[in-house]
Structures are given as structure tokens and as C-alpha cells.
């Protein structure tokens, strides 16, 4: 009885994460962002390097977890000069803060979508963000691997992380992030 109580205490220290574990396939995943320019058009950019691990149980989706890491220095907007500007202190400060990360803390099911709340860390600041995520069925990849797609979307205010360049001028504060992640079953 005593040992059972100790075991229960130990398990209680860890969050209940269960399900299949997927590694994010950086070669077939996309992280795209958009921001208003001159308050008229949405300007899109992307990050070329993304990594992460997703735990997902189709039978109990709220028990999973999402841990995503984006290489801030891989920002790509089809202009070398703009990319360099985005990498430095005015925006992502990628030398000092090389990664943008998201780590889920809770998941709720709303209709067909998951509302995944977690810690979003950028420029050394961590704040809660909720992504709306839809999950695909599985497919077979090369070599018989099992694949699953996760399509996530959220909108943040970049100023909350201290990224204020251009706000009040030609660049918007709100940034929409779209992540289309292909997971390979471990």
C-alpha cells in the first residue's frame, strides 16, 4: 500500500501525456507568417527551419503535447536585405535569440479542432498563446512510416514580446502565424 502511494505520487509529478510520438519533418513542414503593410495588404514571410515533437492520441487528443522550435535566423521574405533586417535587433535578434519556441501546456477539443495553449517564447520573453490546430488522418510514408499532418494557426501581437519596429508606421502589430507540420511517427 505504501509503495503504491509512492508510485502514485511520482506519476502525479508528470503531466498526463499519452499517444503516438511524431517528429516534425522539417523538409515537409511550413511556418508562414503574415503582417499588414501600410494597413492595406498582408505581407507573407516564412521560416525555413523548423523542428519539434508532437504527441498525439487520436482516441484522447487532449492528452497530447506539442513542442515546436523555429530557427529565427531562417526567416525568408524573398529579399536578402529584408531578411538581414528581420534577423537583427529591430526584429528577431536572431544572434542573441536563435530560437522561437512553443511548448503546449493544455489542450481543449472544440469541434473538429484542438485549441492548444502553451508557452510561446520569442526574444527571451515567454507568454501564453493558443493555436487552433486541425489534425489529419494518417498516411503511409516511404519505408512504411506513419505520417500525420497538423495545421495550426494563431494571431499574436508582436509588441508583447518587445518587437516594436515599424508599429504605428507602415507595419502592423498583429502577426498571423500559420504552421503546417508533417509528423513522422517515431
Amino acid at each position, binding site marked *: 500500500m505504501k509503495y503504491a502511494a509512492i508510485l502514485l505520487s511520482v506519476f502525479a509529478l508528470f503531466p498526463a501525456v499519452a499517444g503516438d510520438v511524431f517528429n516534425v519533418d522539417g523538409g515537409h513542414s511550413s511556418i508562414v507568417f503574415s503582417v499588414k*503593410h*501600410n494597413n492595406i495588404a498582408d505581407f507573407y514571410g516564412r521560416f525555413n527551419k523548423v523542428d519539434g515533437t508532437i504527441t498525439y492520441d487520436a482516441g484522447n487528443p487532449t492528452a497530447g503535447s506539442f513542442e515546436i522550435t523555429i530557427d529565427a535566423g531562417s526567416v525568408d521574405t524573398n*529579399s*536578402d*536585405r*529584408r531578411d*538581414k*533586417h528581420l*534577423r*537583427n*535587433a*529591430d526584429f528577431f*535578434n536572431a*544572434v*542573441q535569440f*536563435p530560437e522561437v519556441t512553443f511548448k503546449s501546456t493544455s489542450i481543449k477539443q472544440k469541434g473538429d479542432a484542438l485549441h492548444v495553449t502553451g508557452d510561446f517564447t520569442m*526574444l*527571451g*520573453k515567454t507568454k501564453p498563446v493558443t493555436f487552433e490546430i486541425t489534425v489529419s488522418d494518417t498516411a503511409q510514408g516511404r519505408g512504411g512510416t506513419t505520417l500525420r499532418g497538423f495545421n495550426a494557426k494563431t494571431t499574436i501581437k508582436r509588441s508583447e514580446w*518587445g518587437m*516594436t*519596429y*515599424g508599429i*504605428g*508606421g*507602415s*507595419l502592423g502589430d498583429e502577426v498571423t502565424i500559420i504552421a503546417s507540420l508533417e509528423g513522422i511517427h517515431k
Partner: protein
Amino acid sequence: MQSTEMIVEQLFKSAVLPVIAGGAGAFLSSRILPDRLRGDGAAAVGMLAGFAVSFYAVAGFGGFPPVRVDQWVPFLGLAAVILFAIAGHKNTAIRGILHLVLMAGVLWIFYKPLGRLYNTWEMIMWIGGSIAVWAALWLSWEGVEESERHKELFLAMVVTATGISLVSVMDGSALIGQVSGALAASCGGLFLASLFLPGLRIGPTGAAVFITLTVGLLLNTYHYVEVHAVASVLALSAGFAINILRLPFLREAGLIKRSVVVCAVGLAPIVAAVVFLLTGAPPEDEYDYGY
């Protein structure tokens, strides 16, 4: 807000505001500070006041301790003012120790996040090079004889900081360019104030604040903004133009002649850096910094 209005607002924050704050800071501190600090100390306080007010107007106050390395620069300048106001007047050995303390702080803050980018030998090379640059700047700015500390030194500072500002803006960061421009404008404010305050001058305290701010901004410009190495070195070299004033034929020259010479010598590498960046920029890339 229209782009033109935004540019005007940013110009006010980084060019007009530091002139006013720098001049006013020097004027007020020359009234308040004890006699021994009224010339040099007032210039140092004015320089920092103009720079810091503009820095926070442009970049915002990020709290303390700062998260971003560039946000440390005003605090490092404040440390320089305090250390040199307390003990910087004593002797060269003590000033050397104070410079070592400031340099250690600057290098720790700017090189600590770079550990993952450089191996041990590269890091030793970078830190060693930075120490050599700091020492050379110190010898240059303190090497000017007391009797020759005239108003043209403020102009030499304006030219040096303008160089850092230009290469930053042209090769990466509007923010670092603006705050470097703020340092230039603040020194410009000191020059204007010196026309009304004859005792205002650059001595060990003003030199220490200027070197601390300049090295901090330069390290940021090269390592974090990724300004091209050639342009960075050319911008740095403007900081040594002051040594031209040691030439015998300039020692007896008047303010205008000394000002023209030191500014021309300082501007030469900056013009070279601008030409280098202009000719190296890809012509098809018409990015306008979001404006």
C-alpha cells in the same frame, strides 16, 4: 500614420531630442556638479543624457536587467559616468583599472551570447582584438594633451558616431543606426553647449563614456546586426582620427583649422565605408526598411 510622418518622428527622436537633452544635461550638470567635475563631468553627463533619452524614445525602456544586449548600452554608459566621477580624476593607473572594469562589463555582455557561434580560439581572438581596440581608443582619447582639449573633440565624436550610425542603417538595422545617430547628435549638443559654457570639455570621464558607448554600439553593429566587416572596421577607424591633432603643426592651429582637419580625417574612412556598402548592395534588392 503616413511614412513621411513616421520618418519625421524618428528623426526628431534620434537627431533633435539628443541635441536638446545632451546640451541641457551638460548645462544643468555644470551648475550642479562640484568644481572638479564641471568641465569633464558635465560633458559626460550631457553625452549620456542625450544618448539615453533618445535611446529610450526610439527603442523603449526594456526594464532592468535588460533582456537584449543593445539595451545594456545606456546602463554601461551610466556605469562609466559613476565610476569616473568618483575616482577617475585621480591618476592614470586608477583610470586604467576603471577602464578594465568597464571593458570587462562590455565584453561579458556582448560576447556571452556568442559562445555558440565561436569556438574557444575564435572567442579568444575576438576578445583579444576588442581589448586591443579599447586600449587604443583609450590611449587616443586620453593621449590628447590637457591643453589641447578643445571643442573640436566634440566634433570628432559626432563624426565617429555618425559613421557607426550610417553603416548600421545601410547594412542592417535602423534601430542601432538611430541610437548611434543619437550618440552623434548628443555630442553635437555638447559642441553647441560648449559655445556657451567655455569650461565644458572632454576629459577622462567624457572619454570613458564615449569609448564605452562607442565600443558597445560597434560590437552590436558587427556581431548582432551583421554589418560587413570592412564597413565595421572603417567606421571604427574614424574613432582614431583624433590622433591627427598630435601633429606639431596642428597643435598651435586655431579651432576652425583643427576642426576641419579632424573631421576630414574622420570622415574619410566613413565615406569609404558608405561607398563600399553602396557598391556592394545587390541592385535588384529594393528593400526600404518597411517604410
